[in-house]
């Protein structure tokens, strides 16, 4: 009897982008039948800005490495400049 199993890889793709090192994480979920992928993968995205945290230990480790205090300070300064520029 075939066994269907839903599998999720929470860190299917991790990208660090932009001047403030936003961390883009793609989670992938798929169904396996007897070890073979059935159908396609479904993707779910999350972006972590400097100062954000994650429940996922692997992602949090990346955050801790990438979002240094220097990066967080630069990002907060950028937000303040943007707030003034956009008349927030």
């Amino acid at each position, binding site marked *: 009897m075939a066994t269907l199993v839903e599998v999720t890889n929470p860190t299917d793709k991790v990208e660090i982008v*932009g001047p403030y090192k936003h961390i883009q994480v793609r989670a992938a979920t798929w169904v396996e039948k007897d070890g073979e992928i059935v159908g396609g993968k479904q993707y779910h995205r999350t972006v972590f800005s400097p100062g954000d945290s994650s429940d996922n230990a692997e992602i949090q480790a990346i955050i801790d490495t990438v979002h240094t205090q220097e990066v967080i300070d630069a990002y907060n300064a950028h937000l303040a400049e943007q707030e003034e520029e*956009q008349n927030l």
Partner: protein
Amino acid sequence: MAGQTRIDGNLIDTGTDPNDIVSVSVGDGRYPRLSQDNTLAGNLTVDGQVRSDNVTDSAGTGAPAFPNGMSATGAALTDPEITGGIYLGGTGSANYLDDYEEGSWIPTIEDYTYSTDYVLLSSYSGGDSNRLSYIKMGNVVYIAGSIVFKSTKTARITMSLPFAYSGSSYGLAGSAGWYNFNAPAGVGFLGTGGSSVDFFAMSESGDHSDITVGNSDEIYFNFHYFTT
């Protein structure tokens, strides 16, 4: 016949299993040739694949003619998996398409709590009212949806995006509509913080201001933006 036959210094091997395919081993500078009535015919594979670096035309200098009409023109491929990108209309970096992706994300709306303060409506087929769908083609992201408010608040509506935007916060393009709340000159939006969009009310004089929403008020939006 099983076994090996040596012809003109080359080796043809059918192996001992009658189901084995024929393997042909030739010397340097020679090429295996499949023909029918002295006309080239059949498909040639190397290590189970058609290998462009191993297969040439009959002269041994040009590209091979692929089976089923597959060529530079008129090729029809069914569900090919392209692990890299593809050049369209040219071979420069401006012609290179390296990504297509459909998916969903759960936006966070600053100072608002899902379910208590708002729900989302969109084309997302999963049935969740806390998710939106996106499509990414190359480095352009497309999103659309509606925010339906459930409580009364006055604030900017800052919603997280599925990808960080590149360049200016003024680079997001599209439109936003609204229902039931006061926005004299409409609802505008700008990027904020590198990975969020900020909705605001516009006055007739062009000022940007907080939005005061109440139960059943709505914002509709569709826009696209560039990511890295």
